[in-house]
């Protein structure tokens, strides 16, 4: 690849933004650790964990992996396939519920 192409990528970003994101990631990690420390339970625990996780993942992808500055063509190609995963997750959650129901009912509870 030639020089000009590197420079295209070479339009680098200010160091401040990396340090900010870095700091935020530490804070978020600390927060999610605190979720366990304070032993939150139930839906609250769930939603906090997932929110912090998605925020962290989003920050890493957007800034450390430069996805925020990439063109939409690349971003869309990378993110749309996740719908298949989302579908898989939802269906497997339903499947697990069904499995655990038949197990509990026919192996233990009955009636």
């Amino acid at each position, binding site marked *: 690849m030639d020089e000009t192409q590197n420079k295209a990528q070479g339009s680098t970003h200010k160091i401040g933004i990396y340090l900010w994101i870095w700091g935020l990631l530490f804070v978020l990690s600390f927060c999610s650790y605190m979720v366990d420390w304070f032993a939150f339970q139930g839906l609250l625990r769930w939603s906090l964990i997932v929110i912090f996780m998605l925020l962290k993942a989003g920050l890493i992808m957007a800034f450390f992996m430069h996805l925020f500055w990439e063109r939409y063509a690349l971003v869309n190609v990378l993110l749309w396939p996740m719908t298949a995963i989302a579908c898989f997750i939802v269906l497997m959650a339903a499947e697990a519920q069904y*499995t655990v129901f*038949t*197990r509990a*009912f*026919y*192996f*233990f*509870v*009955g*009636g």
Partner: protein
Amino acid sequence: MHAGFIFLAVIVGSVLFHIFTPWWWTDIASNWGAMDDTINLTFWIGGGVFILVCLFMVYCVFKFSYKEGRKVEYKPEDHKLEKILTIATTIGIIALLAPGLIVYKNYIDTPKNALHVEVNAWQWGWQYRLPGEDGILGTAQVAKISDDNPFGINLDDPNGKDDILIQSDELHLKTDKPVKILLRSLDVLHNFYVPQFRAKMDAIPGIISYYWFEPNKVGEYEVLCAEYCGVGHYGMRAIVIVDSEENYENWINEQETFSSLIAKQDNNKLKTTRIAKNNN
């Protein structure tokens, strides 16, 4: 040209084969006539499309075979035609899908009055468990299976005591009475399939699967395992006998319940200890 004739012959041959085939459905012996109807519907619509598409193709072969200097149409797209075809196909697909879904809804909703029958499948054979007087099957676990407890019934479950155990591959069913088949596998995947009943479902170790049907023709039917389960798969057959009410009662009264099995075994143990004592 001859190619067109051969393709035509293939299509005509397919239709003729269908008309004269001696190989067709076994006579249905359950309530799932609706499944046959959806198949027939799919068959006629699908078969029609197949014949039309192929005839059109053959027509093109006859009509437009290569000739130097033939005038050829240059029309990359025809939005109107494409739209018509899309809509027509979509309608056709909906017409096929909707009845299928309705039948399926029926298939997964077991009637309340269905008789529960647990089918136990293993490599390579079958046994059955029917609820006793209380109409409820006791809970059971694979890990609890032993010589004394061939179905792994939980001993502390009162529902299990009067369960009727059939340690043979012959199952009797009452005619015109819905049955819910509960499938339990002790080792690998199996499938309790009677072609005449149309319905089938896999037995999976670790969970209980089910399906239901209503046998409506007295007779003897062969059960085939329809999910590959190892070397003995092809030999994993059983018999279902659909009885009239009277015969069914006679049969079921002859069967052993779980509590009588336990009693018999206790008796046997007692005897063996006594013999052992006498011998000493």
